[in-house]
């Protein structure tokens, strides 16, 4: 059976972990400013963070908040940990930045460090690099959070080599952004502490709607 052991949700310049808001910044901050504040709040030092595009920063932070205080990384075999993410806009935000840099003939300096982020699955790569997670990974493009798809796909992975997974949604499109990431384990141990004893469309939808945002 599979359970959900922890989750984090970021939107409206707020970070919620397991349904409780743990960090919020002034709502007038831009996405980049907010991400920088949330990074400071996390209290870690990971210089690569500053090189990431907004989507990777958002996904990275959401995963860090979900992982914080759990034993997920230490007690699991990370070669059997999958990462399954999804969104609607693919990498649109960074695509725009790259497009701007090649559009102006008089100021033509496309940046390799920007271009590498014009793929949505680089967010998965950043999580994999940070924690040396080498299991299966997939990135789906869906119109909205498709709990059914994510649950079905993760369950399918659990039927072979995968034992644990980091699953969710990471979307950035101009001013709109949202990340929602949960940790799930396929375990025989029914006493294992978890937020939800089951992984299914209902449990995912429930935790997705759990947080009461303050504005």
């Amino acid at each position, binding site marked *: 059976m599979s359970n959900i052991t922890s989750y984090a949700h970021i939107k409206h310049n707020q970070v919620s972990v397991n349904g409780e808001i743990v960090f919020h910044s002034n709502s007038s901050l831009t996405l980049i400013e907010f991400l920088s504040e949330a990074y400071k709040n996390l209290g870690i030092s990971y210089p690569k963070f500053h090189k990431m595009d907004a989507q990777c920063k958002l996904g990275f932070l959401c995963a860090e908040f979900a992982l914080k205080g759990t034993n997920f990384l230490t007690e699991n075999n990370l070669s059997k940990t999958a990462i399954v993410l999804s969104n609607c806009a693919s990498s649109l935000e960074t695509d725009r930045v790259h497009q701007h840099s090649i559009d102006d003939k008089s100021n033509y300096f496309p940046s390799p460090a920007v*271009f590498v982020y014009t793929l949505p699955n680089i967010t998965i790569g950043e999580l994999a690099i940070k924690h040396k997670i080498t299991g299966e990974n997939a990135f789906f493009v*869906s119109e909205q959070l498709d709990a059914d798809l994510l649950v079905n796909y993760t369950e399918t992975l659990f039927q072979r080599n995968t034992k644990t997974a980091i699953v969710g949604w990471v979307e950035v499109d101009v001013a709109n952004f949202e990340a929602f990431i949960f940790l799930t384990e396929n375990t025989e141990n029914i006493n294992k502490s978890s937020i939800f004893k089951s992984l299914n469309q209902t449990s995912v939808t429930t935790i997705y709607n759990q947080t009461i945002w303050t504005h």
Partner: protein
Amino acid sequence: MSQRVYITGLGMISAIGNNVSESFLSLSQSKTGIGKINHLTTRYKDEFLAGEIKLSNADLADLVKDNNPALNRNSYIAMLAAKEAVINSGIDTNDGLRTGVISSTTVAGMGKTELYYKELFEKYDHLDVLDTHDCGDSTERIADYLGNVDYVTTISTACSSAANAIMLGCRMIKHGQLDRVVVGGVDALSKFTFNGFNTLMILDREWCKPFDENRKGLNLGEAAAFLVIEGENALNLRKGKALAEVVGYANANDAYHQTASSPEGYGATLAITEALAMSGLVPSQIDYINMHGTGTPNNDLSESMATKAVFGNQVPKFSSTKAFTGHTLAAAASIEAVISVLSLQNSMIFPNLNFTTPIADMNLIPETQLVNTPLNTILSNSFGFGGNCSSLIFKKA
């Protein structure tokens, strides 16, 4: 015991042909499709070569028989290749069985969006173009074009995308969620892609030379390729014919760098090893490897290391077919899946063009001429940015 999954239909359009039979002809005559840029408008027109599809957008619209202005090059070629695969398989999407479409793309509608970019974001004109920009758009177009499709999804994991679409299709059939799936990938060329890969300095100005000591980089290509995969139950029900069986697949993350592969090919080794384990085959039972082999210094070295890690001193015959088609990104794995099935069907290994000198200390020499030899099993590798490594194993049906 879950049911077996067979490939029953092939469709592809790329620089080496507008359909499977034209592609087979080019492959068997060692004729590359990479040449001067004719259709794409770019500052690099005279600087780089590319594997362009030899048809204009107007030609493609004629072939698709749809002049809907919302369609773009990506959708046209996806629709054509998917339709060819469906016709080739003989399936009827109206027969009551459950059909899925799982496609992959990285640049999506960018080729069209960039033409109107200034108008879009400065004058808010041509906003209808944005409707076709999304990665999901070409998948929806395919589904509409084929008709009566029960399930549609889009995967975007860079250059291994189509391999992951094939894997997902197989799994959904094995788990009884679908009876058959049209799987594959598509990426049309765009300025966006050219300018981006150029910043990474991994484009060769001449023909790419996969696995050559003096390789300088890749040639970009554009393509769409789709395969119909069917569960054995559905296939038996309609008394259809299998072209090949998908016996192994695996995906792993290299966890090394956003774009570069690890020097020792860690993720690739994991993917190949897992795919072999799933197939129940031992390394010596693989008859041929269709390599990812992009021609970049980094990929080919890393893939060579992984190949040696898995196969030791008994590396099977191998080649990269990217010197025919160019690197077609999200379509690459499905293009190479179609080529692998053609190899199985025709007992032919298609050559690794432009190779002369083996990579120092690797001692790995690809097939440089067409080889006629019976083939029973083929391993096909596809690795993408973001550390995404996939391997597929096909078996003669």
